[in-house]
């Protein structure tokens, strides 16, 4: 009886641990090992080597892809934070009893698949798409920069991850005690000061999570550039997917995966260690 009681709470922990080990840790280890091997003629050669990493660090194309991805991920995430704040703020402050409905509306695009959404965007942004088609009909010049370009990818990323970022900031603001803003106001702070000194810092951790939720998938994205990036819009993740597909250079692909993993983990570490949680009002004990 006492034994069973003792076991029960441990079960809660053991089952997820086992799951994570089998389907998260083991594949990652496999990926790391593979990245130090080689592939020749669609066969894995088990010779330990760092050749894959050398290739990634020296071949200009891979370097370009990587920095294009990095700049894209930072740009998209920053833009999303700026765009999402007013939306989330509006829902929390003025949503009233429609708050829940308004926040659920953001999830509607998720009801269809990602590929479908990208094809729809292709239809919007392409040469004969809705935007350019209308422009041409009205006697204008089509906008070249939204046709199969980095800009098109950028728009697609913003479209894909907007609900994530808005939702995280929305949840953060929902838990924010707006009476603190009244207190700041009574202390002599104007609207701008209240935002800078109280609202923003106390919602910084939520904002950073939103940032990372768009940064990490954008950094490794393969579908968006494939559908919308055009010939000069190849991103790192897309190139990685090609290693596992057409080219059959799995080991190189694995090395790219490791690079992406390290960079994402790095971004996570910088943002979470670089932020003093105390200064974001985080006490680990909930709202006090």
């Amino acid at each position: 009886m006492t034994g069973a009681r003792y076991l029960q709470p441990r079960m809660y922990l053991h089952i997820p641990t086992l799951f994570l080990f089998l389907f998260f840790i083991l594949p990652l280890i496999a990926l790391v090992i593979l990245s130090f091997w080689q592939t020749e003629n669609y066969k894995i050669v088990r010779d330990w080597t760092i050749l894959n990493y050398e290739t990634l660090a020296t071949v200009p194309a891979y370097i370009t892809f990587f920095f294009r991805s990095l700049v894209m991920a930072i740009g998209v995430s920053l833009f999303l934070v700026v765009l999402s704040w007013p939306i989330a703020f509006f829902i929390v402050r003025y949503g009233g009893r429609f708050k829940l409905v308004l926040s659920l509306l953001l999830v509607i695009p998720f009801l269809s698949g990602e590929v479908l959404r990208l094809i729809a965007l292709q239809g919007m942004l392409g040469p004969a798409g809705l935007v350019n088609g209308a422009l041409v009909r009205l006697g204008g010049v089509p906008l070249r920069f939204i046709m199969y370009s980095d800009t098109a990818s950028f728009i697609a990323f913003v479209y894909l991850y907007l609900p994530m970022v808005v939702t995280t900031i929305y949840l953060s603001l929902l838990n924010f005690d707006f009476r603190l803003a009244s207190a700041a106001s009574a202390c002599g702070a104007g609207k701008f000061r209240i935002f800078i000194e109280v609202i923003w810092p106390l919602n910084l951790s939520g904002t950073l999570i939103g940032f990372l939720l768009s940064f990490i998938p954008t950094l490794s994205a393969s579908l968006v550039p494939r559908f919308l990036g055009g010939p000069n819009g190849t991103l790192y993740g897309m190139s990685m997917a090609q290693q596992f597909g057409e080219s059959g250079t799995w080991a190189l692909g694995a090395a790219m995966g490791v690079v992406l993993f390290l960079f994402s983990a790095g971004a996570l570490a910088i943002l979470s260690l670089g932020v003093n949680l105390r200064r974001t009002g985080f006490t680990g004990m909930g709202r006090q």
Partner: protein
Amino acid sequence: MSDGSPYIRIDNVSRRYGPVCALEDLSVEIEQDEFIAILGPSGSGKSTLLRLIAGLDQPSTGKIFFKGQDVTDLPPHKRGIGMVFQEFLLFPHRTVRENLAFPLRMTKETPAKIAARLDWVEGVLSLGGLMDRYPNQLSGGQQQRVALGRGLVAHPTLLLLDEPLANLDRELRQEMEVEIRRYQKQLGIPFIYVTHNQEEALSMSDRVAVIHKGRLEAMGERQAIYDHPATPFVARFVGKSTRFDAVVEASGSSARLLHYNYSLPLDNTAALKPGAHVDVFVKNERFDMKPWEEERPGIPCAIVDVVLRGPFFEYILETDRRDRIIAVQPKRAEPIPIASRMLLSWNASQCHVFPVAG
């Protein structure tokens, strides 16, 4: 004020939320160095009044003047007020020092002045050793002192306190009552103190404003509010009292209780007609209790229980009609034993009689 206008003037202020009237046509004048308590049950509109004075809310009609200047349309940060909230509302991401410096930074004081003021507030509120802690590392009483300090540090025109002691335990509350009153006398600015706790209101303030259903029921010196309630609501709400149904007797100069064989003289200033129904309010500590005797005027009753309240005994009495009455008596000797039969009466000049509406 040199021009003779009151320090704070609230002039015919109303606040409506749609069809709901939270405050109706309320006027109050407050002098400098006055401690005003705004007393009312929850939902009476007392917090709305405070928010209007603070500028956190705008009146639907009416004006608010600080030192003769119309501040009705000014936002809170331009009114030069200090405010203390029931939930303290300290900035959780800032240390005590930073919380206290916040109002000073907002008014762009020089670093030297900020340091001087922080020293001052640290001394006045005995916050030594707490300055570099975060709010969640403080006890409730410490947080309360920091909240007070944040309200006072910028030397505001007036300090608004919204039930600041409601979240503290009883002992601490009584200690803070004395402290807060001392700060007010020291600083010489008006404190406007909102509370639903009449003990707090009476122990701290100079004058009490009683608010009920958005209206000002009474305003006056605390002793007057307690001893001479102007309305039945005040009689019921301020102090603990018992209500009796009575009717004016034929002579017009006495009233007889409906359910008891007891009548009391009535100085019939309100010219109540014989047969008119009245409510008689008697404060619990104003009852006279004597051992029961046949043929003497009074309400016969039996002691059901005795509650010890420090220097007082609280006798819980039951009348023959099974009505419960509480009588408070100073503790002089041993309490009267339970089940003793007593006779309850009171001095007619010590009770309050109001005609029953309708």
